[in-house]
């Protein structure tokens, strides 16, 4: 069965041949597009869009989708919406790990419901929680909730940071830098260092392009330079030097969207990435439902037949999910440097972790 490592190595040979149809390194399954927050920067989901949200699959069919994904890669990221709103999320995670045998499992959540789902924690390799400000009042405005809820989530982050070693996962805080939170992001970095949490940053996108007020703000560039310096000094910041440098001046990069494929709640494969799928052009869409195919290779074959090869170069979103994977695949030396944050159960970052 393909693994992230074997796919990475195969991709190196594919790239050397100029082949852009790469094997996935980690697949993302949107288990539900329902959400209980209304993040201002979220372009796709959020509670305000719940009436239009796709209905999640029942447990058995969701597991079947995951089995098809597993035939392509052994790393899975579960996200949403808010994935903990899925009615069978606990069972889905359990079966993903034990029955489908994903080697590496990541859950992206807003952590507001995490205390009701502690049984999933031992099965996770990485728990990713969104945090855009350490000030509950400011943060509640960004995520469209009350300061009380934001305060509780901050406490949850502290709690689950302290329990990393107990359950065996790495906690990662994901921060979207927006013009409104630009003055807050340094405090998030300090917060994460204090609580031994890995942190990753992405700039807010508008129309699949970094927010204008970030592009033109010296404060933003100063912060990214600060990140680069802190990372060099050993701070647990996720993001290769290549990616952080790109965030500094937004230089273009070669994007390989098939490295991080997306699957929608009903099992539809998104090809080659969300922005192109949503554009309604002839270059992308939903070529098949994974419930209707026998393997990942068959799904990709159908996508290529329908939409041709994925694009060559992207000068667009600069989001870490696509850009980082593409950079690390194309620049193996950058990968070596990032391995110290590898999502292994014995990762070096734990030497800092409490408990």
């Amino acid at each position, binding site marked *: 069965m393909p693994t992230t490592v074997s796919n990475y190595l195969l991709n190196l040979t594919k790239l050397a041949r100029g082949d852009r149809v790469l094997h996935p390194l980690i697949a993302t399954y949107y288990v539900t597009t329902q959400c209980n927050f209304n993040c201002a920067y979220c372009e796709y989901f959020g509670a305000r869009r719940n009436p239009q949200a796709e209905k999640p699959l029942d447990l058995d069919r969701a597991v079947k989708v995951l089995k098809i994904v597993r035939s392509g890669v052994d790393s899975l990221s579960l996200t949403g919406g808010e994935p903990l709103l899925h009615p069978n999320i606990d069972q889905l995670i359990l079966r993903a790990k034990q029955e489908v045998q994903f080697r590496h499992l990541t859950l992206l959540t807003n952590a507001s419901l995490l205390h009701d789902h502690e049984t999933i924690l031992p099965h996770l390799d990485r728990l990713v929680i969104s945090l855009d400000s350490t000030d509950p009042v400011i943060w509640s405005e960004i995520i469209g909730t009350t300061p009380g809820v934001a305060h509780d989530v901050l406490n949850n982050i502290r709690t689950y940071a302290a329990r990393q070693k107990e359950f065996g996962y790495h906690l990662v805080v994901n921060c979207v830098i927006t013009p409104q939170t630009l003055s807050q992001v340094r405090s998030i970095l300090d917060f994460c260092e204090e609580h031994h949490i890995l942190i990753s940053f992405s700039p807010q996108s508008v*129309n699949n392009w970094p927010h204008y007020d970030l592009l033109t703000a010296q404060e933003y560039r100063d912060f990214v330079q600060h990140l680069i310096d802190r990372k060099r000094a050993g701070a647990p910041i996720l993001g290769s030097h290549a990616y952080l440098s790109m965030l500094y001046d*937004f230089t273009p990069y070669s994007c390989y969207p098939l490295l991080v494929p997306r699957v929608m709640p009903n099992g539809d494969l998104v090809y080659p990435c969300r922005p192109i799928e949503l554009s309604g*052009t002839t270059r992308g869409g939903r070529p098949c439902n994974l419930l209707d195919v026998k393997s990942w290779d068959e799904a990709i074959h159908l996508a290529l037949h329908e939409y041709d090869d994925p694009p060559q170069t992207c000068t667009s979103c600069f989001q870490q999910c696509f850009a980082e994977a593409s950079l690390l695949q194309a620049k193996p030396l950058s990968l070596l440097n990032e391995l110290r944050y590898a999502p292994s159960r014995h990762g070096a970052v734990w030497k800092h972790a409490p408990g």
Partner: protein
Amino acid sequence: MTTTPSSPDTLIIGSGLAGLSAALHLAERGLKPLILEADPQYCGGRLAGGDMIEFQQNGQTWRFRLEHGVHGFWSPYRNLQAMLARHNLRPVFVPAREEAWIYKRANGRVTRVNAGSHIRHSIFPAPLHYLALFFSPRFLAALDIRDGLTLLEVWYGLVLALGVDPLREDQPLEDQWLSDLVDHWGPGVRAFMMGLTRNGLAGTPAEIPLSGYVAFMRFYTLLRRDAWEFSYLPGDSGTTLIDPLAKRIEELGGSIQLGAQIDRIERSNDQWMAHSRIGSFAARSLVLATDAQHTRSILCASEVTREVAETLYFPRSLPTLILRFWYDAQPKSKVEAGIITGDVIVDNYFWLHRLQDQYARWRKATGGSAIEVHLYGPPELLEKPDPLLLARAATDVHNAFPELRGHLIHQHVQRNAPLHTLFGLGRAEQHLTTVTPWPELYCCGDWVRRPEPAFFMERACITGIAAANEVLQARGLQPWATLDYPKPEAFAGWLEKLMHRGRRILRKRKSIKT
């Protein structure tokens, strides 16, 4: 486009990208700009949408919206992309995958080299990245001994472009032309480099000012490998870009008056008046956003500006010719675009069914293919009758793609007015910048002098923003911040500094001698 000219704050003559950029930035700050466009149907200038053409195939009617011609959106077009994204107008572009160089020699032999990816993904740092081409057997096959003997001279030409920044240093390089530099180059390398240059500047070496060539090379390719990354619009420029942009300006309170061909302007009572056959328009500020030659024409026809305008330098504007061919078969090559040089009349080509949705849908339904070829001259060629040009261009296409012979099902000729800017730099006192010698009259467009290194669409946009900023500052409103351009790669930056230092030393020695 609607017509709502009521008490505008600012008149903008010309609705190309420069005029629209200026209008958008003014309207966002709450002003009410009025754009005056000569065309009775479409705004957008060189990006305007056009009429539909149609033909029958297998009993079905197919329609395609025309445009001025395929444009590339290059990665350094940062202010343009930022402006579009801020208003959710940025389409999902079609990234360029590969560009071929097709070289037809006088003996009829055709060589095809996939060059674009070699340049942008070169393992050599800029400005050495073109060396990657010499690892391509096909590229080497296109060269001969004369190319080998003149490679140093070619290298000198490229290094010259590193050592001088005409725009930032204010170096017009007067009376120097590209032909002075390239006439002795070997035929293969010359054909390749001229193909690249002609693809952008559209002139012949004898008519391309050296300042324009150097600035062009610096912006598009010489300083960074990734400067060569670019994309295409997923449809015709009118539908995907200009129409949404114009709509947004109107939503924000701006207006567009079509069919207003401005003949002259005048100033009275601290107001600018613009006169056309359909009426006169007045506002406190005036932005001239027309191409260089139309700007000259308006300024020279107007009493208040004539005396100064007649002494000014205006870059040339060139006509272009766009030919489109539809086939009922597919080309073998998967490359979507390229340049064609040598014993041919066409300058470049774009496989539309690989770039634009309207053509992609047709291809899917019929299995056909469609190509757009551009002809940039010389002028006597562009004056030939349509049937002759179609026949010769089709021959060029069929020589490059012989598998398509006998499969032509439809063809179309489009003659574009002389609007394509052949950029050159005039002396500072002669070449208009966004601020003009006349009060509250500003200029923008891809021919306007500004220190930013940008070209074409990005230059139109950045000068449009600069003109808008002048208007805003005159009213005490906050100007817009603009994005700077990526620095040269480390090695290119080091060479650039070295060249500058060398030039300073030479200047110093020269001044001591004199």
